[in-house]
């Protein structure tokens, strides 16, 4: 057993676990988080996705003891009580059917937009390719990502010159 320190959604946690324990089970069963879910245990489907320093990571194959960065789960995506623009778009586009995979869809989309704020349609497809949905809500997922991109582009063009250059902050 080993004491592992994790930063999750802005809080620090210490857990005493076997070093090989996948992060997924620590998040779900020790920290009581519900966003990341077991889908395959093989890093093939994306249901277990979390962000580590903003990068989409499959928690089912990541040993908790190996994590050094800041972990964000679906629960931690909102800022100051405001849902992430992607989550708002997900509701506006009424994306989920069953919704079990949507944790991985939303977080992978967030990582995609972090790296490329204005992806083309084909970049969205490529960036999301590894996240599976067995209800086949893909068309709605892509619509929600496009809506987010369009709105952020629109707000950029509507922003003041200082805001556009970052001088306002």
């Amino acid at each position: 057993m080993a004491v592992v320190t994790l930063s999750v959604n802005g809080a620090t946690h210490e857990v005493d676990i076997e070093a090989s324990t996948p992060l997924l089970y620590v998040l779900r069963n020790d920290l009581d988080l519900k966003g990341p879910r077991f889908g395959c245990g093989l890093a093939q489907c994306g249901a277990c996705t979390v962000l580590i320093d903003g990068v989409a990571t499959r928690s089912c194959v990541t040993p908790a003891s190996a994590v050094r960065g800041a972990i964000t789960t679906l629960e931690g995506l909102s800022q100051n009580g405001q849902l992430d623009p992607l989550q708002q778009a997900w509701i506006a586009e009424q994306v989920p059917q069953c919704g079990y995979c949507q944790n991985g869809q939303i977080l992978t989309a967030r990582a995609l937009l972090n790296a490329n704020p204005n992806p083309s349609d084909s970049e969205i497809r490529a960036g999301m390719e590894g996240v599976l949905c067995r209800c086949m809500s893909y068309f709605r997922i892509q619509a929600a990502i496009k809506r987010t991109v369009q709105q952020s582009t629109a707000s950029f063009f509507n922003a003041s010159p200082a805001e556009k250059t970052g001088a306002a902050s």
Partner: protein
Amino acid sequence: MSETRPGLTLPSEIADAVRSVNPATSRRGFLKASGALFISVWLGANPTERALAQTAAGSAGPYPIPDYLQLDTWIVIHPDNTATFHVGKTDGGQGTGTAYRQMMCDELDIAYDRATLVMGNTDITPDQGGSGGSDGIEVDGWPMRRTAAEARRVLLELASAALNTPVAELTINNGTIAVAGNPSRSVTYAELVGGRRFDVTLTGENINQIRGLAEVKPVQDLRVIGQSIPRYDIPAKVDGSLTWAVDVKLPGMVHARNVRPPVAGATLESVDESSVSGMPGFVAVVHRRNYLAVVFEREEQAINGARALRTEWTPPSEAPFPPSQDLFDYMRAQTPTSSSREVISGDPDAAFAAAAHVLEADYEVPFQGHTAIGPAHALADPSDGQMTIYSNDMKIYGLRLGVARFLDMQEDRVRAIYMDGPQVYGRTAADDVGFEAAFLAKELGRPVRVQWMRDEETAWDTKGPAYTFRMRGGLDAAGRPVAIEYEARALDYNHVGYNEPDTVLIAQLMGIRPAQPAQGGAALPSNQYGIAHQRMVGHVVSLPIIWETPLRCGNLRDPNGPQVTFAFEAFIDEMAAAANADPVEFRLSMIEDSAEDGQFRKARSLATMRAAAETYGWDSRPSPNPLMAAASGAIVSGRGIAYTFRSGTVVAIIADVEVNRETGRIFVKRLVCAHDCGLVINPTGMKYTVECGMLHGLSRALWEEVRFDNEKVTSVDWASHPTLRHSDTPESIEVVIVNGDPHPGRPDLPHYGAGEACHKPMIAAVANAFHDATGVRLRRVPFRPESVLDALRNQVS
């Protein structure tokens, strides 16, 4: 250990749905509530909190199913003039919960946002059977509408007495009844019955027949029905706050994983418990004949233990099945276990003899699986001699009854609580795992959570039956269809039902057998084609081993429809091409030649086909597209139509495909679906469910096949069992709502189902579009790139 420990983790979606449960909702509750402390717990709790509180407080039940003849079972009016509806359904993510709430709000005359809905909790909601068959709106919506209408009638009578005014002179606005023309004289629903019971008994021989004295509203008076109200369940699925069935935790809970036979039909000879008993967190190895599970304190410990457990198995004396590449030859060589009666109209033999042109084709569809994104799971709590099962099983009442019989418990000591989970499009392994969790919980006397692993889910979940088809069609000299023959073979013997205590997987592995295996069935096509001479028949065939095998059939989304409609609608397309006719006009002409039926399927089929063609911009010409024959380059494109009905819902789909002749990849670029399901409760919700239903069909067309060698399934993960992905998603999807009823404004317009009808013709639409692009027929599902390249190389049609 961690600094945060799970306590009672409660389903917030139910908490959101029911802010205050009124003790007047349940006479049984009053009888049971013996102390003030208990009542205070109960008053503030949502149904699942209440269930857990009772368990924690040492309650052993009983948990009878509420009486569906009592209006109070269905509808509760709260003191704050809001309402809660209790329905015996589940919502697998198709938005039916939102639709039920709309239907009941409309009949009760209360705003949508002043009502909540509770579903699928066997000791709180009446037994409507859970879900299945896309009949929630079509069938179960009627008792919901009628009970809400009856509640409204009773409230009007109470208001009449309270206001000393005849009912005819009263008006209702959102839960307030006023004297017409004198709004100051009014009374609210809450003032009339808030916090109290209606005490009204309904009549009806079964739950679908129940009614009071009131009639439902005519369509013209409906206001909430027909609105695209956003689904209430979506925000909590998007912000991470929803508690799913996978998330429920109970004090003392342990984790189990199954260990399956490595070969279908194998016998477990020995288990070496010492191979795992020294591992951290070990609780038990549980072993009954060929059922085997390990139980550990922590989830990852159970996963490691299941992998580490040393076992010895003896394979069966004969191969349990042929390898998947030989499956269709095997099926055609078998003597059927049963055959349907031949459905014959006219004189097909004479018609074929006289036909100017006869064509024949064979079609093949492999086993396809549910393969849920989240493997099957359940949590069972055995405390105090009762059994509570937390599950996403869509037939929650069947789960309760089946488990009671399996464990030899009184029915009212067992309850099942539906919570959200991964897709439940039919008879999934959610049934099997609920029994496993309950069995292990009873054995160990502790709450046990079981989840299947990926390989287990993909290999052992129930399959949609494999099919072979032989089709024959006759055209006269003018190219008109005069005869058709359809012969199907379904590998469907021993089709398992829902939650049967003698066919669930754990029962099979324990050696339990029903008196007779289910005969299964091979379905006939649903169409409205007036071909004068027809012969149709279906045969069922069997594999060598039918028990304790991963190749077991159960209902998968529209259980036979995608297979049957692929063969039938692809062959109709072959006949149209042989007649050098436009595929839409060819079908319209056959529908014109048919007789009308009680659901106006002829008129609605014509309207639906025309709506699809018009929306698409269909120009009349035969297939294949003559321009494509001369096309250079890798990519050719084509269009295809397929049509069917399912129950009362009529659907026509047009697919635009691009085929890469070098890679074999098919890309469906555009989909148009015309959809007539009568009165639509929530248009946007329905359209999005249809979108996803079509894409699920597309996944089955392009990718899905369960493969196996001659002893085990070899499709065990997402590499060996590919599914549709983001890159396969069409660029454009249009769903057109059609009302093709000959009396479209009639006040009793029925509401039919969605979700499965649109799934049904998808494979055929893709195959027909592929032919339009290439001139080649795809007659074996799925259309993976290697199969497409084979077809392009080998077939000149």
